[in-house]
């Protein structure tokens, strides 16, 4: 740091040096006077003997070792002057850099938050999730007794558990609202090392007894949003799903649970599961979900997290955990009589999954898209670099007089390169500063675009050194990328050339030395722009293909209402009357043709899946590929949804609680489970003999959204399943769906004021949400594609214009010798077409493998889709020709007399 002090004190040091040297001369004068000289003669001799002050100053500065910084400072000031002199160029360059670097930084910010950021807990790398491996997908679900077995079997390892996140009805003095909650074990916060921001977090004592204690911990975010961080909230009683509980504290700021991209609002004791009616995601087998879940080994609903410090991660402890699990699996397998099924159960084993990044459903969906988008923003930045490099080159050639002068005055080539590079770095630095703001704004926008609803994805994007470092590094690299090559080129320019020629020279294209590099830059821009355009066209077409796909149900004219009767306190006893009331109210809404109910709903992402299906006359089916989705629906469901029955009959009013259980299955299920046999009249189910009779086959519908696979699906009649309560009401309308939605909401609310209605919207809107990712990709990639196109076209225009200006006299001579304007125009255009053509060929060669890489994200087109490639090429070619046409016309209008006179 001493050199820094010396640098800061530079002026003082310079003064001191001057004083010291002056003092030396005075002493010499004194001595000479003492020797008998006259004062003036003494002064003359002393100064003569001393020589020049300046060389000494210079060498003393060198001795201080700060010269490079002083040079740098000089370069920066000089560069700033140069940039100030051409504000248009500077503004354009800084602006485009800000956008290009900013887009990259925004992508980085989101990618970092989603993929690389550790959880805000203590020593996150020690945390592991327990996974029931052996299946196609990770299964992080355990029963409470299973958790207890781990705790007893491996006492030295701390285990904690939480349920999946569920919507809960929260209220404090007034209307209730739906918030996100999660049940956790009492020691959960302790194991994670999450402290309280205020009050306290849970302790093991909070979950000691089943049904206790009525307490809640709020997230800091919720505390701020709902209570403006009022400390008086702690100790107050609020109601959750109509149960009064006491707020005991607020979890540490920045901690929002282990699920990245979800804004969790509160945590509740696991032992309150039944009292709070917390029916979260679960897998049930031989269990009664209506009784408390904790004592039942058959209900797996807990994600188990364990802390394995480095010291024991590599000992026998993991193996002992696996052994505990092996024992449970084996005892499960014992209960299976069918040998095939027993073998299937035995496949399961325990795996420890690193938990430092938390869980995130978004990660799976967006990892690949983010990679693609990051690649595309990087390409945009590269195009920008090539563009700026060619601009600087063009400007530099205009500056060749200045550079030649400086070279001839003795500036070293290195010094010139340094000076020019400093200018570029200065531009990049300014661009980088602006880019940070662009990145913040862009990343927020990205979360908005990626969200399925109007609420942006709640991913916290901290403004920290990671983002700053990225922006700084990107700016530095960018500056070097677009600055270094032109600087090297320009400094090599002949010394005499620039001075002698007076900057405007005839140059037959034959002995050009600089144009090839300029051309390479243009080809690079065209190549990259074409690759981006191909990507954009591919993603836009994917999105269009998805939206136009037949989903197998009516989208425009069906309105879905979602509500939460269970949370609102309705049990299965009240349900039949409530459902009658709701359907009645819905049917009286003007414009409604029919109304029906659904339990898990269509396009919701919610599903009930059964395994171990028994089909009449067939051996048992084992394995995950033989699972079956089921959906409980009301009367007139297929008519309401506009789904066509292929064979058999629809549900009838005579199908009731006392009669044979009936099912309508979809085509996929018919094919998969029955093959060539006619399913009508046959039975299937979970028991023996199988309980459901197939009465009809309905046409396949994309119930998870367009482009998603159609599951094997059986529709059952709600009336025959008194334990199940619907969450969705559908109406088919003949009027405008938006107004019908509003009227429906009002009608349902007045029919049952206590019902928590979550959302009333059209199936079309819900369909749109299932393709949110594709919408995001098509919007962003077309944005990047257009940006790249614009940048490349501008680059092309600038380069061609510049070359026309430089060749003015040559063109003048050609015209004077009788060349037609048309031939001159063609001369310029041909040059452009050659360059653009070369770029297109390389671009197409790059685009095909790039499309193959993103293949899984595409829908309805092959990686080599000729329409996509042709469309992108056509767009690029026509824009390029337009960009070149303007300078070509100008070239043809060159006045030969004036052109020759400029010489």
């Amino acid at each position, binding site marked *: 740091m001493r050199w820094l002090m010396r640098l800061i004190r530079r002026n003082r040091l310079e003064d*001191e040096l001057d004083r*010291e*040297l002056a003092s*030396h001369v*005075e002493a010499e004068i004194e001595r000479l006077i003492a020797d008998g000289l006259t004062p003036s003669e003494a002064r003359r001799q002393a100064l003569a003997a001393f020589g020049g002050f300046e060389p*000494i100053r210079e*060498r*003393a500065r060198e*001795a201080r070792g700060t010269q490079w910084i002083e040079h740098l400072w000089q370069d920066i000031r000089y560069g700033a002057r140069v940039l100030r002199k051409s504000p248009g160029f500077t503004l354009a360059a800084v602006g485009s850099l800000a956008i290009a670097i900013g887009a990259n930084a925004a992508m980085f910010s989101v990618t970092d938050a989603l993929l690389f950021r550790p959880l805000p807990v203590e020593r996150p790398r020690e945390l592991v999730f327990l996974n029931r491996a052996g299946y196609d997908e990770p299964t992080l679900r355990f029963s409470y007794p299973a958790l207890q077995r781990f705790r007893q079997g491996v006492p030295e390892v701390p285990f904690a558990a939480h349920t999946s996140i569920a919507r809960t009805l929260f209220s404090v003095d007034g209307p209730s609202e739906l918030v996100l909650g999660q049940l956790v074990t009492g020691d959960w916060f302790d194991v994670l090392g999450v402290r309280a921001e205020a009050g306290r977090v849970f302790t093991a004592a909070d979950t000691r007894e089943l049904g206790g204690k009525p307490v809640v911990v709020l997230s800091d975010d919720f505390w701020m949003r709902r209570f403006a961080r009022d400390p008086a909230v702690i100790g107050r009683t609020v109601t959750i799903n109509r149960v009064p509980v006491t707020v005991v504290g607020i979890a540490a700021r920045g901690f929002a649970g282990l699920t990245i991209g979800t804004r969790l609002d509160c945590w509740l004791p696991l032992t309150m599961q039944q009292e709070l009616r917390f029916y979260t995601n679960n897998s049930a087998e031989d269990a009664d979900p209506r009784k408390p879940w904790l004592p039942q080994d058959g209900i797996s609903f807990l994600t188990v997290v364990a802390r394995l410090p480095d010291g024991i991660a590599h000992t026998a402890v993991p193996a002992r955990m696996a052994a505990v699990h092996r024992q449970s699996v084996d005892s499960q397998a014992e209960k299976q009589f069918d040998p095939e099924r027993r073998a299937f159960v035995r496949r399961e084993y325990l795996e420890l999954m690193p938990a430092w990044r938390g869980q995130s459903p978004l990660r799976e969906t967006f990892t690949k898209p983010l990679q693609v988008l990051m690649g595309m923003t990087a390409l945009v930045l590269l195009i920008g670099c090539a563009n700026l490099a060619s601009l600087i080159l063009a400007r530099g050639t205009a500056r060749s007089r200045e550079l030649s002068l400086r070279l001839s005055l003795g500036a070293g080539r290195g010094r010139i390169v340094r000076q020019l590079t400093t200018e570029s770095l200065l531009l990049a630095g300014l661009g980088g500063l602006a880019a940070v703001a662009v990145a913040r704004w862009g990343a927020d926008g990205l979360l908005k675009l990626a969200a399925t609803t109007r609420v942006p994805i709640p991913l916290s994007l901290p403004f920290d050194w990671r983002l700053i470092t990225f922006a700084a590094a990107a700016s530095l690299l960018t500056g070097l990328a677009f600055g270094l090559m032109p600087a090297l080129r320009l400094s090599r320019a002949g010394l005499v050339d620039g001075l002698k020629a007076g900057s405007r020279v005839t140059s037959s294209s034959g002995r050009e030395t600089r144009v090839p590099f300029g051309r390479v830059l243009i080809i690079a821009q065209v190549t990259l722009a074409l690759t981006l355009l191909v990507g954009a066209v591919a993603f836009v077409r994917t999105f269009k293909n998805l939206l136009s796909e037949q989903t197998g149900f009516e989208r425009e004219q069906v309105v879905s209402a979602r509500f939460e009767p269970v949370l609102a306190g309705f049990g299965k006893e009240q349900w039949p009357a409530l459902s009658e009331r709701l359907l009645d109210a819905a049917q009286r809404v003007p414009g409604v043709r029919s109304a029906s109910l659904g339990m898990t709903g269509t396009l919701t992402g919610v599903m009930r899946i059964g395994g171990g299906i028994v089909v009449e006359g067939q051996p048992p089916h084992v394995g995950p590929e033989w699972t079956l989705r089921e959906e409980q629906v009301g009367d007139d469901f297929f008519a309401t949804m506009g789904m066509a029955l292929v064979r058999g009959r629809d549900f009838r009013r005579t199908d009731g609680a006392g009669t044979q259980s009936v099912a309508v299955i979809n085509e996929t299920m018919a094919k998969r489970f029955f093959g060539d046999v006619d399913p009508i009249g046959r039975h299937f189910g979970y028991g023996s003999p199988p309980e459901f009779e197939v009465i009809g086959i309905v046409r396949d519908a994309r119930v998870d959204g367009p482009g998603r696979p159609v599951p094997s699906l059986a529709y059952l009649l709600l009336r025959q399943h008194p334990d199940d309560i619907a969450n969705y009401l559908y109406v088919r309308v003949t009027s405008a769906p938006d107004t019908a939605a509003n009227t429906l909401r009002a009608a349902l609310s007045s029919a049952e004021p206590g019902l928590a209605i979550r959302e009333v919207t059209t199936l079309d809107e819900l369909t749109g949400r299932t393709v949110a990712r594709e919408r995001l990709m098509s919007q962003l990639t077309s944005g990047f594609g257009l940006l790249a196109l614009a940048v490349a076209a501008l680059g092309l225009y600038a380069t061609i214009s510049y070359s026309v200006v430089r060749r003015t006299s040559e063109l003048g001579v050609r015209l004077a010798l009788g060349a037609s304007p048309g031939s001159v125009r063609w001369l310029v255009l041909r040059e452009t077409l050659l360059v653009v053509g070369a770029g297109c060929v390389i671009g197409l060669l790059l685009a095909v493998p790039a499309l193959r890489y993103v293949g899984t994200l595409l829908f309805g087109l092959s990686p080599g889709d000729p329409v996509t490639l042709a469309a992108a090429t056509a767009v690029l070619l026509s824009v390029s020709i337009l960009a070149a046409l303007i300078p070509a016309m100008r070239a043809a209008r060159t006045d030969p007399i004036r052109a020759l006179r400029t010489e």
Partner: protein
Amino acid sequence: MPSDRSDLLQGTLDMLILKVLNRGPLHGYAIAQRIGAISRALLQVPQGSLYPALHRLENKRLLSAAWARTPSGRDVKVYRLTTQGRRQLSEEVADWERLAEAIRLILQTAE
């Protein structure tokens, strides 16, 4: 300027400065005078080298400097040897003596 006096050997100026200052703090002009006087005017210290050398040594923390006023009323920057400088001096002197001894041997025996 008389030019028949020996140029200072490269690198020896630093050592001479340290040696002169070993007897007590001095300002720049006095250092030049002292070197000239001791060497019986055989060595002339060029000002062009003296001050950069002084600053270099100060940067290396071999010297420390402070401003003072002479009896005649001039402000001068007085240099003083630091502990580090003293150590450096003894190393350089030892090196120099080894070198001088080697050269002497060569001059004596290589005839």
